[in-house]
């Protein structure tokens, strides 16, 4: 279901050019013939411009490969009407695999000079596969009727229910995080015990290929399993999930992103891929899990599992008891807006469960996710974070054998820094490390961007995605093995708290510190680099390790396995930070202030800041996860500098991936220099409109041919004098109705005419179908019923937001962004509809800055 801008609807216009008279209604044959004629015209139009694409082959092929994402397309009976291959020259034969857009000469728009013309780079496209979420209440008659019945008790109940739900989100998110933690811990212990046994045995009798093989195959199998879950089960579970959640909170519906199946596969997948030794962390997936939990709990049902906690009539069931307390509460939360608020709280709960950082969680939600924020929402989010951290600490305190000892150091993610002292003269050192972090981060992002573009283009078949993941796991293990084999760095046993010391070529009573870095979960390696005393690692060890980890992490992020970015970034940074510390210590052996652990922490912060480009929440997360608040300032400085330096070259990795996903994300601010762009340039014109009382057959035909999600509802146009040169109006604006509403009306057969009265529907009827309503092709209407009429007046939103045709782009943008709109109707001075603005109409204006060059561009929309 597409938004307004992208498709090419048959023009069922009811303006003065629309030739459909209000009475008598045309028969379906006449209308079908008209549609048919129009198809012919459009296809002819396409063929005229690009003879090579008269048929729809390439389109179909593309759809097959991307059917997981936009499976709705398959329901469209005559979808090629709404889609025209147009202006693309796919010159595979030339060896140039890149699609080039070649506009036909007559279609080139006389655009304003500051908008640059681009070919189609991968980041500068918008996909038409994404729907928008609608945060605006539809205040129709049914809504008002319900509002009258509610009373104050209902308001209290809803407010209380919000807190209860937020509490549950915190608890369940923490429990999921715990189970991931414990799973990884136990499975890794088994893995390392097996490999260590063979390692130790084979060092003595010379069969090193045996542990090598065991290690490689263990990793490849675990990662392969995880990748199969993702590639064949739920592709949206890949990666960290933070970009997807960010899009969701911005108001873009990403298919499947908050489904329970996604949660399941993500949780299992991340445990398996971490145990499989990939250079990834479990934190990002935990944040995603929190968001899914929030979306699921707040709705009180799972459509995937056919579970629904709304009012039932069986008094004996447990469900009845639950409903006794929560009757109609969950129902009340079945709107995009409520769901969004809970998802923001869930993401915060995920962060606090992942890092044990409740404040960091709230700030993360604020900084990265939430586009809409208020005080009450902050409190609830903070409550969710707090509950989540608390639950996690209790469960883990039991796991660590110190029940209810909530200040136990092992609960801190990166271990406690006891006494870090620093003085003013060190601050330039931290700033310089920030610069290094920014440069390395920008390089990391650029490299990962290139790899991701390559992946999108060539590694799109499922089996090849699984194979690639397994290969990366194999190579990671090979690198780890060869490095432990080649770099001998022996330390006395018992000196450091190593979980699985590997001896390799060291003497008895010693272990190889290089091996120990690889031979534990990445998170534990971060702890080692932070806390192991000076001298544990030789400079060569950390240098080689950091170098390898940087490239492996870069290669790994974007595979089709659930994978977090935080830990690999921190680990890379901790390695080079520690290296900086060691080098300074060697150069100035008497310098008392040099603490390798401290510098490793700064390096980690700078590297992470350079990659994800967060400052506020990241600083707080690191402070909370290390339990050290006095060292906050150096962390902040390093993060700030890293962000400034990195932003000079490119964007944060999450934003890069959002752009690669071609999501129409609306930034915080309208693009600069757009005040002279007017609504009539921004809008889609003409709009597909519906009359306030419309024949059922016409409505069905409209929905079938045109997959917009909202339609301006008009009244027959009045004879308004129109001057020469003005845009033809399409009828007086009376309201806006959503596609989902129309479908509910059709399914419930709320028809009038021929002496028939419409059956009664209420808000619950509409909420029941949220968020998945049937496709139009599943709606069956008899031939007789097609001739009946639909009366939209009590179902449409009677007071939609509308702007004049000369409203400037920044105003539209602020209205749209601030209110979370989905459709904004553009009217002329006679209040006649002349177009509709949706998210994609706005998102196509993009402002970019790169190495000091700034530009405004208008980016195309692709399928």
């Amino acid at each position: 279901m597409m938004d307004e801008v992208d498709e090419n609807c048959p023009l069922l216009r009811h303006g003065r050019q629309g030739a459909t008279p209000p009475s008598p209604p045309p028969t379906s044959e006449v209308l079908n013939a008209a549609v048919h004629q129009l198809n012919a015209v459009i296809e002819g139009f396409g063929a005229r411009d690009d003879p090579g694409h008269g048929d729809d082959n390439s389109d179909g092929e593309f759809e097959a490969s991307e059917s997981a994402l936009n499976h709705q397309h398959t329901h469209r009976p005559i979808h090629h009407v709404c889609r025209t291959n147009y202006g693309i020259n796919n010159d595979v034969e030339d060896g140039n695999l890149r699609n080039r857009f070649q506009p036909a000469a007559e279609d080139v728009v006389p655009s304003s000079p500051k908008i640059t013309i681009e070919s189609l780079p991968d980041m500068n496209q918008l996909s038409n596969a994404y729907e928008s979420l609608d945060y605006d209440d539809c205040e129709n008659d049914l809504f008002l009727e319900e509002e009258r019945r509610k009373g104050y008790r209902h308001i209290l109940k809803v407010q209380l229910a919000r807190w209860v739900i937020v509490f549950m989100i915190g608890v369940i998110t923490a429990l999921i995080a715990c189970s991931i933690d414990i799973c990884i811990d136990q499975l890794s212990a088994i893995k390392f015990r097996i490999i260590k046994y063979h390692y130790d045995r084979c060092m003595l009798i010379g069969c090193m290929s045996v542990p090598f093989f065991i290690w490689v195959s263990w990793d490849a199998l675990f990662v392969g399993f995880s990748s199969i879950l993702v590639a064949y089960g739920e592709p949206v579970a890949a990666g960290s999930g933070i970009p997807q959640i960010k899009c969701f909170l911005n108001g873009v519906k990403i298919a499947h992103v908050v489904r329970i199946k996604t949660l399941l596969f993500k949780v299992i997948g991340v445990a398996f891929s971490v145990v499989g030794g990939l250079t990834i962390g479990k934190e990002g997936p935990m944040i995603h899990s929190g968001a899914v939990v929030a979306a699921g709990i707040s709705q009180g049902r799972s459509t995937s599992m056919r579970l629904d906690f709304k009012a039932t009539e069986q008094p004996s069931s447990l469900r009845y008891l639950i409903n006794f307390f929560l009757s109609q509460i969950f129902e009340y939360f079945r709107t995009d807006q409520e769901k969004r608020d809970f998802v923001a709280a869930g993401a915060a709960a995920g962060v606090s469960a992942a890092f044990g950082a409740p404040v960091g969680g709230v700030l993360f939600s604020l900084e990265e996710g939430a586009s809409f924020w208020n005080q009450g929402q902050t409190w609830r989010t903070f409550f969710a974070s707090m509950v989540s951290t608390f639950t996690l600490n209790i469960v883990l305190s039991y796991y660590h054998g110190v029940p209810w000892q909530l200040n136990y150091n092992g609960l801190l993610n990166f271990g406690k820094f006891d006494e870090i002292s620093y003085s003013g003269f060190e601050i330039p050192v931290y700033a310089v490390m920030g610069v290094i972090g920014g440069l390395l981060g920008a390089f990391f992002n650029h490299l990962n961007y290139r790899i991701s573009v390559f992946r999108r283009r060539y590694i799109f078949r499922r089996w090849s995605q699984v194979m690639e993941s397994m290969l990366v796991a194999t190579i990671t293990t090979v690198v780890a093995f060869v490095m432990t084999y080649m770099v001998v760095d022996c330390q006395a046993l018992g000196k450091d708290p190593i979980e699985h010391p590997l001896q390799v070529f060291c003497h008895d009573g010693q272990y190889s510190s290089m091996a120990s870095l690889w031979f534990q979960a990445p998170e534990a390696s971060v702890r080692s680099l932070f806390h192991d005393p000076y001298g544990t690692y030789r400079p060569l060890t950390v240098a080689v390790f950091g170098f390898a980890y940087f490239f492996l992490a870069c290669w790994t992020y974007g595979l089709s396995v659930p994978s977090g970015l935080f830990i690999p970034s921190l680990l890379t940074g901790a390695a080079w930070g520690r290296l900086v510390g060691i080098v300074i210590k060697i150069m100035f052996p008497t310098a008392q202030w040099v603490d390798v652990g401290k510098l490793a922490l700064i390096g980690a912060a700078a590297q992470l800041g350079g990659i994800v480009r967060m400052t506020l929440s990241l600083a707080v997360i690191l402070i909370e996860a290390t339990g050290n608040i006095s060292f906050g300032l150096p962390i902040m400085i390093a993060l700030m500098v890293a962000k400034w330096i990195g932003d000079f070259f490119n964007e944060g990795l999450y934003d890069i991936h959002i752009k690669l996903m071609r999501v129409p994300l609306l930034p915080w601010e309208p693009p600069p220099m757009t005040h002279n762009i007017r609504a009539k340039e921004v809008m889609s014109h003409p709009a597909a409109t519906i009359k306030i009382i419309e024949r059922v057959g016409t409505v069905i035909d409209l929905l079938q041919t045109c997959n917009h999600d909202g339609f301006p509802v008009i009244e027959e146009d009045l004879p308004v004098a129109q001057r020469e040169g003005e845009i033809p109006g399409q009828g007086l604006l009376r309201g806006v109705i959503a596609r989902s509403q129309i479908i509910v009306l059709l399914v419930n057969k709320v028809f009038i005419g021929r002496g028939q009265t419409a059956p009664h529907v209420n808000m619950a009827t509409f909420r029941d179908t949220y968020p998945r309503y049937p496709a139009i092709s599943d709606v069956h209407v008899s031939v007789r019923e097609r001739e009946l009429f639909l009366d939209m007046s009590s179902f449409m939103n009677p007071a939609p937001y509308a702007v004049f045709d000369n409203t400037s782009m920044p105003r539209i943008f602020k209205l749209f962004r601030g209110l979370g709109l989905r459709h904004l109707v553009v009217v002329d001075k006679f209040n006649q509809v002349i177009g509709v603005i949706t998210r994609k109409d706005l998102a196509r204006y993009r402002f970019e800055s790169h190495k000091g060059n700034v530009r405004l561009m208008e980016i195309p929309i692709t399928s």
Partner: protein
Amino acid sequence: MRLESSLLCFLLIFFKIREFNCTASELLFSSNLLDSGEGGVPQFSQSSEDLLNDHGFAKHLEESLSFVTESTPSEIIVSSCTAFTNYYGDLAANFTQCAIRNARPLKFCEHCVDVYVNSLNVYRLIMEGSIMTTSNDRNVTCKKILLESDRVQIVVKTAHFIQGLWDECDCTNCFEYTQSGNGTITSYYPNNDTLVFLDMNEQAKNCFKNFSGDFDIYGQRSGNNTVCHDCEVEYHALSLFYDKLEEKEHREVCMDVVDAMNITRMIWSQQFQCRESYDDQVLVLTLAGVFCLLPIIFYIANMAYGARVNGQLIRQKRLRDIQSSETSSPDESLNVINT
């Protein structure tokens, strides 16, 4: 209840009623380390001096299996708080000395356990608040004087140091304690694992002794290879036992044992060069090379297999030109803004 009894006890001591068995002081003075001196200051008996120099650890500890005390109430105490703190100061000094003397090679736990337990018991007594003293004709607890009189709280800090050192070495895992109801350690003895380990370690060392006079861990290879053959059984048994111990204790074996094991292993491995490691570098590196080729083949194969067909450009409905849309057909008002 106990406070009252100790108050009574204090008064009784104060009035020099010797025959009375006092619950609070019985534990303290029971270890017969305290000898009532002339100046009213408790002094150490010879046995505690012995304790520091005693290297026959196992023997000593077996004696202390019957570490049960008899009551000998102190006779002359001017102020019982001073007496307790003085005594605690001596214990702390002894502990520090003992710790440093046993730092390398690390035999801290076994040699300092006596003085540690004593200091712990004394500190506990002080901190329980049962030791009373008079100040301005009022009875106040010793705890109050120590904790509320200055900000440094030297006694508390010292206790933390002692406890910290003890915990850092995981010494607790070497011993088993029996405690009386109020938490005072009445007896302690090395646990079975420790005894077995020390015994096995002694065997291994004795075996080594036949081949080399002293164990200089930093020394060079002695060139005597028969040791590797002759002591192999003892060494491997010890090593295996240690590994099991480590697993059992969740890697928190007490430091004495860890260090003893490390030294024995280093002697074996570095001095005698008994550890032989085989290095099949060629095979491993070949395998690694083969694995590294796989992704290259994979990517080339995927590229050869063909690229994903890019998405089609969607035609956008735009109001291009007001003038022309007025007159032309609706289709032409649709245009692609390419950008």
